[in-house]
Each structure stands twice: as structure tokens, then as C-alpha cells.
């Protein structure tokens, strides 16, 4: 600690240069925090997938509907515990930015297949008895201020109503649900499939995908194979995946997010490596007589190397802390993309490790030069 004033003063010897270097590292780490945060949030969704469930979609595409008649056939497959279904509704509330994952379901079947959903029995009962009822997730209810008894209009980007050809659907809020405290899962809503199926203008008698819970998760591959075999060569061939695989393939519709994030960050840090490295080299080059004086006063070669290296570490860690701190503050702005999540702690740890690697990579060459400095030559300006 006693060397801190010396290191700190050396760091700010050229204020403008240090500020610009600091800003470039801060922006790099802000980008790191935001992009890795998005990546981690998506990955978290995949990791949280239940191993005891399969998702059955059309072999052609997720957007292709499947006939509801498949349900009984899937139920007959050995190893299947329950079968539920859901359909992509593509809903938003008032503004396209207010996307909500609202899906029509057979509530009793769905609750059996997805037991993580927790709702008051009277809310579930109310949904059963209210044809246009809707059970809203806690996050969605809080976000839009919905209360039980409210009439809520949702606009569907896909489905029009048979009666009037309109895409606006009205629902009555009958209760709320939680999903084991996972906020990502409750910016959503569930409503009655029967009401939806009768009211929609087209594709009646079809569903979007099947949710199959298993008697034994170890039989996952066998059951998936058996389901797909059942509909092989039919008009509605299926593709059965574990919930995790389904989540991954769903994300890949937007592109390989992990690869894109890593490619951007690699480019940013590769540039930063040269920028910061050059700044540190220049800074040490300018201070050669001063470093020689330190050696004259009795500072060892290793001591001078350490001072320069710590200076680099201080610069990078300070900038990383500010950049990641800014990312933490700004991350809630991405709520509409990644849901209700905080910047994961793993991203902060990874950021710190990257900052240390950057500091050593950029600080070591000038520090080594400072270590090898010959006092007499340096003082003579040679």
C-alpha cells in the first residue's frame, strides 16, 4: 500500500492520455458486460430446461401446426406420463415492444406437464370456468398493472378472429402464477385453448407443439424416437427433442448468439490489446530517466518491474470495474430482450479475469523493459 501514491501518480502523469485509455477500456468492458449478460441470460434459459420433458414439433418447422388428433397417439407411447400442448400466439399488449409470451393451453394438462407453475387453486378453477379468462405471470401482471377482473386486450401477430377478422383478443384476468421464482418464465400468460380454437379464423384443430413429460428421464431418447417413428411418413411428421435441445434450437432461430457475442468481443479486445499496450509502452518510454532514478535510489529490477505491472493492472481493473458497473446499471434496459434478469455474477468474474489478462499482456513488455534498464545508460539518455 505504501507504494500506491507513487503508482497512482505515475498512472496520471499524462492525464489526457490516461483518460482516453481509461474510456476505451471502460467502453470495451461495458460492451463485454452487456453482450455476455445477454448471452448468459439466454444460456440460463437453456440451462433451466427440465430434463424430464420432451417437446414435439413439426419436422418441417416450429411454425408448422400439428393436428390435435396426435395427442392420444403420443399418450399411448410407453414411457410417456402426460401430454400437453401449446400454440404460438405472438401477442403484444398495446405496443409491439410489449411482447408477452401468451399461449393457449389445456390448463389441466399443462399444469400436469409443467408442475413448476404455481397458481392458487381458485385462480385455476376460475380459468376453467371463464372461457376468455387468462392467468397472468407475476412479472407481466406487475409490469402492466393487471388486476383480477381487468379486461385485457392482446394483439396477435398471427391469429385473426373468425367473427370479425380482427387480431385483437380480449381476455379477463382471473389470477396470477409463479414459476418457482424464475422471473424469466412469468413475463407470460396462459389462456384457454378451447376459446382460442373456436374463435380463430383458420387452422382450427391444430396445436403448435406438444409438451411430453416422462415417467423416467433416462428413457428420454427412446421415447423421443418412438414418438417420431409413430408419425413417420405421415402428413405431419414430428421432431422430438429434449426441452434443452428445443430451447437451444429456438434460440438459433435468431442466429448463434454465443458465436456472435464471442466474435464481437474478440475483435474489441484484440484492438484494445494493441491500444493499451502501445499506451503503456509509450508511458514507460517517457519515464525511462525516472525509472532509472528509482533504481539509483535502491529499487531493485524486480521492484521496478512490479511497479510498472501494478500500474497496468490498476488501470485495467479500474476501467473494468467502471465498465462492468455501467453494464450492471444499464442491463435492465435490455429487459425486453432477455427478460427480468440481473447481470449474472459469472459475467462479473469473467470480466475481472479478462481485465487481469489484459493488464498482464499489455503491462509485461514495458515492465520487462523497465526491469532491464541500465542505470548509467538511462541517466545519460542513451
Amino acid at each position: 500500500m505504501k507504494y500506491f501514491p507513487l503508482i497512482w501518480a505515475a498512472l496520471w502523469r499524462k492525464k489526457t492520455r490516461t483518460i482516453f485509455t481509461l474510456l476505451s477500456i471502460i467502453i470495451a468492458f461495458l460492451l463485454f458486460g452487456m453482450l455476455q449478460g445477454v448471452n448468459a441470460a439466454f444460456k440460463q434459459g437453456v440451462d433451466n430446461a427440465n430434463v424430464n420433458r420432451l417437446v414435439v414439433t413439426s419436422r418441417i418447422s416450429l411454425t408448422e401446426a400439428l393436428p390435435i388428433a396426435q395427442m392420444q397417439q403420443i399418450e399411448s407411447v410407453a414411457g410417456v406420463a402426460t401430454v400437453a400442448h401449446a400454440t404460438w400466439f405472438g401477442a403484444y399488449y398495446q405496443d409491439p415492444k410489449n411482447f408477452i409470451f401468451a399461449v393457449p393451453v389445456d390448463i389441466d394438462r399443462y399444469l400436469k406437464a409443467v408442475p413448476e407453475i404455481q397458481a392458487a387453486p381458485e385462480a385455476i378453477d376460475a380459468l376453467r370456468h371463464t372461457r376468455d379468462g387468462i392467468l397472468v405471470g407475476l412479472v407481466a401482471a406487475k409490469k402492466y398493472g393487471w388486476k383480477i377482473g381487468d379486461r385485457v386486450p392482446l394483439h396477435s401477430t398471427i391469429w385473426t378472429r373468425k367473427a370479425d377478422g380482427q387480431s385483437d383478443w380480449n381476455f379477463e384476468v382471473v389470477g396470477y402464477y409463479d414459476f418457482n421464482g424464475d422471473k424469466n418464465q412469468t413475463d407470460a400468460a396462459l389462456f384457454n385453448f378451447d376459446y382460442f380454437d373456436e374463435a380463430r379464423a383458420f387452422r382450427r384443430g391444430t396445436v403448435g407443439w406438444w409438451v411430453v413429460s416422462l415417467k423416467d428421464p433416462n428413457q428420454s431418447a427412446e421415447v423421443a424416437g418412438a414418438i417420431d417413428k409413430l408419425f413417420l411418413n405421415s402428413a405431419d411428421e414430428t421432431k422430438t427433442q429434449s426441452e434443452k435441445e428445443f430451447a437451444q434450437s429456438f434460440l438459433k432461430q435468431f442466429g448463434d448468439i454465443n458465436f456472435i457475442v464471442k466474435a464481437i468481443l474478440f475483435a474489441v479486445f484484440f484492438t484494445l490489446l494493441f491500444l493499451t499496450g502501445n499506451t503503456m509502452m509509450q508511458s514507460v518510454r517517457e519515464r525511462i530517466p525516472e525509472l532509472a532514478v528509482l533504481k539509483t535510489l535502491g529499487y531493485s529490477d524486480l521492484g521496478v518491474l512490479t511497479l510498472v505491472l501494478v500500474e497496468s493492472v490498476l488501470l485495467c481493473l479500474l476501467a473494468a470495474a467502471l465498465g462492468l458497473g455501467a453494464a450492471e446499471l444499464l442491463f435492465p434496459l435490455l429487459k425486453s430482450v432477455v427478460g427480468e434478469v440481473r447481470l449474472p455474477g459469472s459475467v462479473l468474474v469473467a470480466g475481472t479475469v479478462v481485465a487481469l489478462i489484459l493488464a498482464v499482456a499489455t503491462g509485461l513488455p514495458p515492465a520487462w523493459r523497465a526491469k532491464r534498464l541500465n542505470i548509467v545508460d538511462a541517466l545519460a539518455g542513451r
Partner: protein
Amino acid sequence: MSEAIVSLRNVVKRYQRGKQVVEVLHALNLEIARGEFVALMGPSGSGKTTLLNLIGGLDRATSGEVIVAGERIDQLSSGGLAKWRARHVGFVFQFYNLMPMLTAERNVELPLLLTSLNGAQRKKNVAAALAVVGLADRARHKPAELSGGQAQRVAIARALVADPTLLVCDEPTGDLDRKTADEILHLLQTLNRDHGKTIVMVTHDPKAAEYASRQLHVDKGALVQGEQLAGAAH
């Protein structure tokens, strides 16, 4: 003569300059007693700064023995030599060589960071050193806010603060006007007379050399003349 603090025996120093080997000091012998104030004089390129660098442990002799403060410093490792310098030598340079971004007191504190003194003790010693050179009221000023004479006083305080055995001064007044130079030389003389500091000073200036108790002339890598000044000037 009292106990020798500096003793050089058959010291040779050669430099490689391109393909040429240049011998800067030729089998030089020198003894400096504790408490002496020695001025090393001579024309440019005579080897006086090289001699000073060997005495101060900044450079190594090609051959011969260099014994300073009772230690064969020509045999010390690089790390050992650094530790030895911190313990035994205070340096004063022509251009002060202060850290521009540090205040006077932080500059003076630099040698003490290598000791085991705590913050309060370091602060006390720094204040005492600045008081000795008459700059107690400039402790918080940075070098750019000081005059040349004041900056050199700070450099002298930095050289003194760890109470070294020997002060090594390379043209300490070379960058100063006559009046300020006299003040600095007077300060060095006081440190020698009143505080018993052994001082070895390189200078071109015969007037500056008059402040020393002994003048040594170096020419073409050898000592050519020694003059004991009984009273020393001023």
C-alpha cells in the same frame, strides 16, 4: 588519515563502443576517508563521472577492487547492489531528477519506501530532511512549482533522508546560477562539516571545487593530481 570509506584498488573500466573497446579508467587507486568532502575535477571524457558511478554502485568495474562502506561492491549481485545503494548512498544529480508528478515530500519519501519505517515515521523523517535543506514550507509543491535551487534542495533532502553513509553528487550546481550554486554548495559544506556526511562531488567549476576539503583531478582515466585544502573555501 581516518578510516577509509571509499577504497579503489587497481580499478580498470572498459566500455565496448561498437567494435572498439575503450578503457576509461586505467588501474586507478583512490582512498577517501570518512567525513571528507572530495571534489572530482577534470575535462569532459576524462572518466570522472565513470569513477563517481563506480563509487556509487551504479556501474561495475571491469577489474580491480571497489570497497565502499566496508563492502566489496564489485562482487555484489544486481539485487545486492540495489540494496546496498539504498542503505549507503544518497545521489544528487545535475538536473535534480525529481519525479514531476510527485510533491516535494513524496519525492523525498521515495528512498524511505524501501525501509521498514511506518507511515508516521517516514513523514517525520521527510519533514526533518526538508527542514535541513530549508524547504519545510514547500513540502506540498510539485517540482514544476519550484525554482532550480529549490528543486536541487529537494533532491538533496531525498539523498539525505535515509541517512546514507555517502553523498554522491554529479555536477550538482551545473544547472544553477552562481548565487544559487553558492547556496547549494554551502548547504553541502554544512552537511559535511556539521553532520559529518562524506561527500564525493563531480564538478567542472573550480569555484565549486573550492568548497571541498580535497580536490582530485582526473585526466585520461587516471588521477593526476591531489590537493588537500586545509580550510576549504567559504
